[in-house]
């Protein structure tokens, strides 16, 4: 005869723990994000328009013109999946609620070109005409491996018949094309294209020279990456830095992030480095606040947040290298956030699998999410890198606060955020400096004049 087993009684501590877990909000328990397929956005975000653009994984970066009488968005087209076009789309946002495809530029014989095709796209104005620059990447085994970018004259929009190709930038010694690009109205009055390539730095082209016909002499400089064996930069931003009266280059690449004085584009001078940062062996997108004190730094791998750095110790000359972020932002810790546009104190983010994300940096130590809309409700990739789907590019029109997202699989989106009806840095006590260029402003004069 055996004795019956004693009845199991939970210890008081177990009961307390169970009660604590039960009473926790559902979101905390599972660390779920608030956006769902049935509730994709925060209440303060209005979806104005949506234009699907075809195949899954066929959309890359985007750019929007800033002048209200030129309501055009440009969207790079690539084949990151298995199908899609290779080129760029010109889209009218005259009615942001009904984006309209106006024109498609495609590389000829696109089915015979290897690899992705279009990646980044930007616009500029020179001598009263408007141009689009589309970066291109074609692999070996097919044509145009040396082709880095195409330039289109888009002055005559919205009439698509007036769009004409002006130039193609080729670099036979650096095959593989251009990845990210940035266009900057320099203090010397010229308009420069900064581009990544298979080069140990960012190549600089004088776009005025190119569209005026002098392509051979248009490469006027290169911003190097410090150190040996460099893979170059991935992405960058160029902006005026009032405190030093310098044109400054902010680049992410091999080893971290670097800030150069590019006032003389032929002789860039290194100012500040951000290397030795935990978890950063290769920097990606890198954007400063309008005054150049804070920088938002991206790295391109799963789980990586956007890191926020305070450059003040370096700006004051106390150190030359910064290696510790002061804060960070991510949409979903399991994912990855991508490009960003700073309209201080707001940072607009294309958050890949999490769509549009907006956070506020008024307290740089405590970034706060202030809006979101999930443009992509599908799963992570299983046939490509898992994180590379959803919101790829983001841009903001300063005049009226229109927000645009290019989504790799769902196309172009237009949004408004309640209370954000435009942006001028002066309204926030900052210089009116962002990625948006003022093409018609006269060149800045040196302080001594």
């Amino acid at each position, binding site marked *: 005869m055996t004795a019956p087993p004693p009845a199991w009684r939970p210890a008081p501590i177990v009961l307390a723990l169970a009660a604590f877990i039960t009473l926790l909000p559902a979101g905390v328990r599972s660390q779920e994000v608030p956006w769902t397929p049935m509730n994709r956005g925060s209440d303060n975000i209005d979806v104005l328009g949506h234009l699907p653009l075809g195949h899954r994984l066929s959309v890359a970066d985007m750019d929007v013109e800033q002048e209200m009488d030129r309501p055009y968005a440009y969207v790079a087209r690539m084949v990151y999946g298995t199908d899609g076009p290779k080129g760029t789309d010109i889209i009218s946002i005259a009615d942001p609620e009904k984006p309209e495809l106006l024109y498609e530029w495609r590389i000829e*014989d696109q089915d015979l070109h290897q690899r992705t095709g279009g990646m980044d796209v930007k616009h500029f104005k020179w001598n009263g005409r408007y141009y689009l620059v589309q970066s291109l990447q074609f*692999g*070996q085994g*097919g044509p*145009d491996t040396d082709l880095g970018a195409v330039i289109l004259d888009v002055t005559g929009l919205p009439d698509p018949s007036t769009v004409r190709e002006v130039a193609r930038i080729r670099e036979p010694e650096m095959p593989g094309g251009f990845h990210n690009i940035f266009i900057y109205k320099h203090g010397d009055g010229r308009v420069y294209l900064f581009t990544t390539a298979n080069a140990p730095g960012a190549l600089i082209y004088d776009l005025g020279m190119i569209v005026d016909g002098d392509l051979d002499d248009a490469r006027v400089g290169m911003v190097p990456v410090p150190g040996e064996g460099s893979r170059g930069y991935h992405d960058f931003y160029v902006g005026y830095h009032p405190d030093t009266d310098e044109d400054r280059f902010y680049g992410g690449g091999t080893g971290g992030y670097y800030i150069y004085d590019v006032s003389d584009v032929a002789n860039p001078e290194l100012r500040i480095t951000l290397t030795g940062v935990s978890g950063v062996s290769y920097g990606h997108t890198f954007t400063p606040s309008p005054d150049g004190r804070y920088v938002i730094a991206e790295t391109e791998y799963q789980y990586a947040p956007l890191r926020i750095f305070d450059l003040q110790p370096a700006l004051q000359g106390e150190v030359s290298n910064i290696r510790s972020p002061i804060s960070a932002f991510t949409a979903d810790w399991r994912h990855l956030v991508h490009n960003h546009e700073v309209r201080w104190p707001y940072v607009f983010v294309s958050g890949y699998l999490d769509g549009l994300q907006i956070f506020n940096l008024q307290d740089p130590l405590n970034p706060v999410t202030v809006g979101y809309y999930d443009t992509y409700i599908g799963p992570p990739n299983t046939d490509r890198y898992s994180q590379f789907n959803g919101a790829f590019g983001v841009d903001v029109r300063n005049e009226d606060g229109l927000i645009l997202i290019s989504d790799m699989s769902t196309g172009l989106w237009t949004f408004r955020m309640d209370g954000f009806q435009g942006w001028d840095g002066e309204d926030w006590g900052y210089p009116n400096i962002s990625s948006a260029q003022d093409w018609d402003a006269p060149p800045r004069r040196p302080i001594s004049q």
Partner: protein
Amino acid sequence: MTLLLALGAAWTFCSAPAADYYSFDLVTTKNLPGSGYASGTVEVTFAPSPFGVSLAGDGSYSYDLRVRVERVKPPRDGVLVAWVATRELDRVARLGVLGEDFTAEGRVAWNKYIVVVSHEAEDDPAQERWTGTIALRGMSRSGMMHTMAGHGAFQQENCAAYGYGN
């Protein structure tokens, strides 16, 4: 007699069907109605020669190509034409119209090349380059050889999957 037998054997050997390694796939673009599930192969053999190796005037190897397409619906009008081109598309040669058995044959003396099957309005032997929709394309295996220096920036390219349809 021994020499003749040897030559005959060599001729027979070179005319034999290509081994798998000497063929490459044609991948559909899905741009032509009725070709969405199409596939194809290009068999590559050394052009026969009584001297064992057939060379072009510039010393390049000459190869015979046999293009075979499957699972494609015959176009309602026009013809399917096979072409071969250099990677840069700066030189193009017409292999010929795909017959009722959806095959075509031709010769090429380039090291790296692309085979294209396009839909053309008519069978025009004088046509120098495709003008119609490209239905299928494939890259020679030699075309998969490339330099690391030419890898696109941040492309994360998979060398083993180089080609079309990857």
